[in-house]
């Protein structure tokens, strides 16, 4: 099959599943949202106490297990790590703060857009600007260094965490919190979410679709391969929403579910998320998939995302339909400064090493 068509179909299945999960009970325009789901999981584990956003989302468990199984089957699974883990942790941390000021990961941004929420268009512009900024560092030699092989067990940690979360979800011990109202209480049935999540995880592993990679490759090497996948998500989700979720389809800026119409901070939040995604080599959903196929660096990033999501609520940084908080605005500005400083210092050091290497060759 034609490569573009294949990517479009892979993306299309994800778009369809997004619409199905919305239909069967997930919060408004949140069939899938990686940032929101990690935030809900952080809440369920008691890492934050925002009572309306606490739930162990089976979709995340499904992404991890689906990607793990497919990566074992096709030989991609490889236990690896050791490429600037602490930098990756903080890039994940700030990535999710940007996403929670906007109210959604890049994948939810596409799903929001496909349900008529034009605030997501402002977010997309910010995301593109963030990706463009990140690329400038890539072009100048940005690297987080090589990963190396890790003990095999390291690669099994994420799937084991997923199984433990699944047990918590089913048994629901006293120390686990589930929302009784608000977005955290809106859930598709567990088994459906789990199975559809596994399908999404498997497809993402096989296709390597990444929202940041799609736009980055267009700008950097004029390659539209992954963009076809993103287009598939958008087009099929739009059509499926018009059929399955027609009542909630609402074209415009106002009264959008789990969203706010403060343009400048929708934009700035996603600028931060875009820069972080490029510096990490992939968006939150791609990090989740990589973490599931043995990449410990992506695993650390996922932990950064989860802890960042907890802080976003503990420190009052996350937005709500009422709007953006002052703390959130400050955090986005600080986040952008911090990640730019990280990127700048990494590039400077890489160039210095290159120069020394060249001079070493010349003097030899």
């Amino acid at each position: 099959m034609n490569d573009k068509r294949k990517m479009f179909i892979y993306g299309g299945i994800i778009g369809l599943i997004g619409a199905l999960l919305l239909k069967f009970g997930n919060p408004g325009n949140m069939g899938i949202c990686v940032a929101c789901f990690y935030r809900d999981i952080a809440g369920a584990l008691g890492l934050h106490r925002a009572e309306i956003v606490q739930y162990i989302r089976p979709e995340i468990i499904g992404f991890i297990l689906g990607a793990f199984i497919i990566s074992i089957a096709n030989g991609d699974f490889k236990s690896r790590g050791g490429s600037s883990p602490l930098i990756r942790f903080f890039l994940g941390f700030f990535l999710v703060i940007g996403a929670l000021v906007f109210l959604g990961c890049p994948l939810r941004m596409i799903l929001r857009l496909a349900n008529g929420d034009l605030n997501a268009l402002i977010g997309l512009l910010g995301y593109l600007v963030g990706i463009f900024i990140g690329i400038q560092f890539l072009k100048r030699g940005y690297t987080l260094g090589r990963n190396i092989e890790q003990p095999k067990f390291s690669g099994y940690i994420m799937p084991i965490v997923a199984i433990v979360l699944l047990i918590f979800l089913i048994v629901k011990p006293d120390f686990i919190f589930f929302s009784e109202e608000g977005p955290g209480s809106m859930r598709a049935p567990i088994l459906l979410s789990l199975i559809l999540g596994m399908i999404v995880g498997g497809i993402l592993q096989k296709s390597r679709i990444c929202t940041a990679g799609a736009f980055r490759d267009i700008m950097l090497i004029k390659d539209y391969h992954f963009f076809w996948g993103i287009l598939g998500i958008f087009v099929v989700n739009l059509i499926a929403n018009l059929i399955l979720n027609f009542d909630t389809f609402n074209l415009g800026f106002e009264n959008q579910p789990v969203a706010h119409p403060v343009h400048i901070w929708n934009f700035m939040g996603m600028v931060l998320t875009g820069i972080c995604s490029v510096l990490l080599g992939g968006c939150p959903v791609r990090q989740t998939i990589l973490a599931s196929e043995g990449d410990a660096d992506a695993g650390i990033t996922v932990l950064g995302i989860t802890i960042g999501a907890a802080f976003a609520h503990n420190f009052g940084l996350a937005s709500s339909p009422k709007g953006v908080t002052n703390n959130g605005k400050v955090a986005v500005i600080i986040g952008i400064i911090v990640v730019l400083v990280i990127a700048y210092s990494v590039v400077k050091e890489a160039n210095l090493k290159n120069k020394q290497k060249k001079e070493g060759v010349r003097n030899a």
Partner: protein
Amino acid sequence: MPNVIDARGRSCPEPVIMTKNAMESNPSEPIQVLVDAHVAVENIKRFAKGKGYKVEVEENAGEYTLNIRK
């Protein structure tokens, strides 16, 4: 002698950028890229073919050598 680029252990999209830089510095010189992830093989292959290069891949114990030439 081909220009050898060691992109093992580099995360996406660094192997592609390293290949791109090598092509731009000397478009006609054969390039040999070493990688250790299948996703990097796919990305470099797609990129190089798009630029009109021929790509041959050799696998050896989870590591790949891509021979790229015009």
